[in-house]
């Protein structure tokens, strides 16, 4: 069977994958920021800067996804990853139960 690869599809898929992975790193940064917030180790000024940086990062992501036309591709990669993790967790839990 021949697999036909459309140049545009490949570009969108690859960029979508890269942006999706970068988004996951961004989510981790957000979690870390919340830990700092709860930990109380940062001054109000530092927290303001951290919050602002994250907000700008979030906006930049939204802009990049629109500009590259990869919003759907990113959603699909992340949906696929979520499902894969669900399946993995499900099989581990299932193995434990049986």
């Amino acid at each position, binding site marked *: 069977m021949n697999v036909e690869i459309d140049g545009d599809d490949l570009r969108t898929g690859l960029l979508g994958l890269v942006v999706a992975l970068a988004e996951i790193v961004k989510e981790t940064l*957000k979690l870390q*920021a919340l830990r700092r*917030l709860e930990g109380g180790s940062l001054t*109000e000024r530092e927290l*303001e800067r951290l*919050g*602002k940086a*994250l*907000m700008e990062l979030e906006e930049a992501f939204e802009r990049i996804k629109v500009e590259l036309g990869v919003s759907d591709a990113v959603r699909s990669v992340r949906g696929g990853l979520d499902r894969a993790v669900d399946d993995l967790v499900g099989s581990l839990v299932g193995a434990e139960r049986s």
Partner: protein
Amino acid sequence: MTDTARYEVRRVGPASTRGRAFSGGSARYVYGIVPADAGEAVDLGGVGLDGSRVYVVVRRRIGALVHDCPAEPYDSGGDSVVAQWVLAHNRVMQLAMARWCSVLPMTFNTIVAPSAEKTADENLLVWLEAEHDSLRERVDNLEGKAEFGLQVSYAPAVILRQVAEEVPEVRRLEEEAKAKTSGLAYLCRLEMERVLKREMEQRVRELFTTVYERARACSDRVTVEKVKNDGSDLRMAANLSCLVALDRYRELEALADEIAGHEGQTVRLVGPLPPYSFC
């Protein structure tokens, strides 16, 4: 040497002569196992796959519901044909439940083929004999019981609204975000989202536990199936298969009504079904 001398295959009436692609054959398609008494011979008529004649092969106190077929699996290119077969298989199970109050269903496409030394009937009888006690026990355990599917879903938007209204931490963070400069307000909103998510997960877990415990209270057995989401706005919290004594079905129905009475929750109760999940 064969076991034919010791076993006896009982049938009623002549083999069906209706012209069908899958009529007759050297193998036996097995629908399920029913309780039987030696000497009892039953013919359900042409109710099987493609109208095949379904009859019971009895070995001591158990019987196998079968029809004659070629020694090859049912395989079709068309989904609609397969759907017809599966429906027919299910129909035979329903008939068996109505008649014997108990049936141990076999998977679709369970076929006993002849081997070099034995006919399919002989092979079937050898199997029924070898598994007799265990099969009879399982059939007895299913007597008067049927399977019900209980699926409970929730509308995330409704649950989120409830959490936002009821959890003080969410309201506090909301107020704080309004009073703060943009960076801090953003962090407050992130925190608020996290609290919302955590509370929502907690509520969904509680919903599952409640449904599961209550279903178990009126069922013989309950198995937890994987939750499925169909892409609609609803998310599934619990997908249970319940083995229920038919006289306790009302309790399950009442439970379903009660769950559905809560805002943002929907329930699907399907049954009575043959006990496919408990065989």
